[in-house]
């Protein structure tokens, strides 16, 4: 795809909405008059959008309004706006309010008390605790009244029946990343906690544990976490939801020691430790049936982030071996490769990464990443394509490895990409900043301003902001000197790159990494 086509296609949408400026409109008219491919594509887009309007218009049923009016709270009720002064719904896409949030604090205190009681192995009579979230009022914080909870028997009576459960809770309290609810949920399921929830329910009778409705057990209580928990829990029907917050500080400053002690005392349950507190990849993991590919994959990722790379590699390998046609096959291979690398098993990593076709790898100077050495990575583009932009595309993680071997001004990500795949990449980079690969790329190169297709349509060229926009940016100077607008400027860029390539016949390949780990020569 030519640079002009690329630019034109980015302007399709505002063109359709008549939101282009005069200069852009002129460019589009001129381009569409001469480029058959873009004109055809625009027609295709128009056709698709026209078809979208085929979607039927739904008329609400006849009793729609009556049902709503019948469901309104009675006059004078807490939910009646005439009475209520609360402000619970936010504007501008913000999430709803925090009407039961104070009770999370109560839940926190209760759960923390439970754990403390457990740690000191004392027979604590249970104090008034949290109310079930279902019972909370909605008329603001001031009117909330804790509901006393009656607990029969001693805490440890119950704890003895659910040691593993509390062990798991304690381990999560110390180790869990603070914003990965779903992962914790998955961990709890994978750890076999589920059968023990009945015991937990006896311990904390005010809290409903119901695995049928996506019970959420969550720990720690930072502000960020509270917000996240609130959003997540409120995103589901309140009934059957449970949030257990355990303040880490209650457990002592050195949670690892606490966990160790717990682990020694009750070694009958798994404790997965995230040794480095590493941010886990984003994901939308949901509960799955046992012993299937998803479960194996999740367990592998859990093990990976728990530092059990050998176990993780085994899980991913088993996932691919037992479920060779799984939709997770590529991801499992990728993670198997990553796990093997962490173990230092380069040969296994090479095998696992074989799905990227003819690419060859070598370790980067730190010995922890594979640096892609070959531009023929057609399969990788497919990988990116098949990944959710929200889930951290594994393809982009491979790009991270490549970034290490690039020079400081311009680097060429050498891989075969189709135009669609390229757009997908750009899309990922622009729309999913949380995607791991791009985020890491941004960490490495915060000056990145643009990722675009190279002149031969087979390279992704990443140009630093300073190269274009900086005061002394060479392309800015060129633009000023020649009086170019941005479209022309991009064309100029490609001309320069072509010149560079002529000057260096091998410019399309990533620069070599010096064997001693030094930075490659700056081609600029």
């Amino acid at each position, binding site marked *: 795809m030519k640079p002009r086509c690329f630019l034109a*296609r980015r302007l*399709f*949408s*505002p063109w*359709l909405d008549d*939101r282009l400026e005069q200069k852009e409109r002129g460019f589009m008219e001129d381009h569409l008059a001469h480029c058959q491919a873009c004109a055809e594509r625009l027609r*295709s*887009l128009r*056709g*698709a*959008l026209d*078809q*979208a309007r*085929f*979607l*039927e*218009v*739904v*008329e*609400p*049923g006849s009793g*729609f*309004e009556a049902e*709503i*009016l019948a*469901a*309104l*709270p009675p*006059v004078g009720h807490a*939910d*009646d*706006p*005439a*009475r*209520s*002064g609360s*402000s*619970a*719904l*936010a*504007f*501008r*896409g*913000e*999430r*709803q*309010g925090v009407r039961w949030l104070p009770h999370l604090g109560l839940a926190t205190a209760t759960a923390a008390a439970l754990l403390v009681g457990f740690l000191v192995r004392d027979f604590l009579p249970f104090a008034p605790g949290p109310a079930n979230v279902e019972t909370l009022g*909605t008329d603001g914080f001031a009117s909330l009244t804790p509901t006393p909870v009656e607990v029969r028997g001693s805490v440890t009576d119950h704890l003895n029946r659910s040691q593993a459960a509390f062990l798991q809770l304690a381990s999560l309290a110390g180790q869990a990343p603070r914003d990965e609810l779903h992962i914790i949920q998955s961990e709890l399921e994978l750890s076999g906690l589920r059968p023990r929830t009945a015991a937990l329910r006896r311990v904390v009778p005010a809290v409903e544990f119901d695995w049928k409705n*996506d019970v959420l057990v969550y720990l720690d209580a930072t502000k960020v976490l509270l917000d996240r928990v609130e959003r997540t829990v*409120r*995103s*589901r029907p309140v009934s059957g939801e449970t949030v257990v917050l355990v303040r880490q500080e209650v457990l002592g400053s050195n949670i690892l020691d606490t966990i160790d002690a717990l682990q020694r005392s009750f070694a009958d349950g798994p404790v997965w430790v995230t040794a480095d507190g590493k941010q886990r990849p984003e994901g939308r993991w*949901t509960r799955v049936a046992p012993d299937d590919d998803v479960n194996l994959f999740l367990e592998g990722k859990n093990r990976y982030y728990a530092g059990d790379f050998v176990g993780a590699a085994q899980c991913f390998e088993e996932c691919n071996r037992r479920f060779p046609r799984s939709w997770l096959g590529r991801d499992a291979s990728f993670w198997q490769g990553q796990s093997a690398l962490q173990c230092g098993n380069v040969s296994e990593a090479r095998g696992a990464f074989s799905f990227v076709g003819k690419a060859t790898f070598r370790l980067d100077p730190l010995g922890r990443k594979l640096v892609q050495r070959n531009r023929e990575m057609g399969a990788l583009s497919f990988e990116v394509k098949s990944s*959710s*932009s*929200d889930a951290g595309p594994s393809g982009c993680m491979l790009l991270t490895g490549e970034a290490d071997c690039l020079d400081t001004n311009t680097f060429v990500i050498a891989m075969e990409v189709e135009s*669609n795949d390229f*757009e997908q990449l750009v*899309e990922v980079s622009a*729309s999913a900043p949380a995607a791991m690969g791009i985020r890491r790329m941004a960490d490495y190169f915060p000056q990145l301003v643009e990722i675009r297709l190279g002149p031969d349509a087979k390279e992704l060229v990443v140009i630093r902001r300073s190269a274009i926009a900086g005061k002394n940016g060479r392309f800015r100077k060129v633009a000023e000197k020649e009086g170019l607008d941005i479209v022309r400027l991009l064309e100029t860029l490609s001309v320069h790159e072509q010149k560079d390539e002529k000057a260096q016949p091998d410019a399309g390949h990533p620069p070599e990494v010096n064997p001693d780990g030094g930075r490659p020569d700056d081609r600029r």
Partner: protein
Amino acid sequence: MSAVQNGDRESFGRLVARHKVPIVNFLYRYTLDRDLAEDLAQEVFLRVFREARSFDPLRGKATTWIYTVARNLARDVARRKKFELKANSAFCERRGRLTPADMATSLDDDPVSALERKETMKAVRSSLARLPEKYRAVFVLCELQELSYQDVGAVVGCSEKTVSSRLSRARDRFRREMEHFVGTRR
């Protein structure tokens, strides 16, 4: 809206009557489930009533605020039903079945048009279902509900520029999905 904020139920009834069709249709296009859309719409209006006092006219229009409530609710439900949604659409594709919506709209057409219409709607639904949530929201709000960029920005909580960018990507994805569905892939 100010009357609703004071608990005026009659005004609330008028507000429901005025907004029910766009909200139900937005939710239908967002969730692709007619029954669910109606249920959600009822919940939306109940929330609007309950939380009416939190509406601040200085921060935006009532319509936008209601859409915001609807979108948040729909997104939450869509997250829970993500896989079901995909499975259902795949199921429909495999079996080529008429959904109730297809049947309802095909009654008035001649058989050929009905079939074409059915196929088109199936393609549209399938393509919509495949759009990531943030793109689907913007696409539905802009393209199908015909809200302005500014209003959509208020609903989804981002700038007009972001709306424009997301809409562009959403449209392109939608086009690709439609092409894929009808087998005219490049």
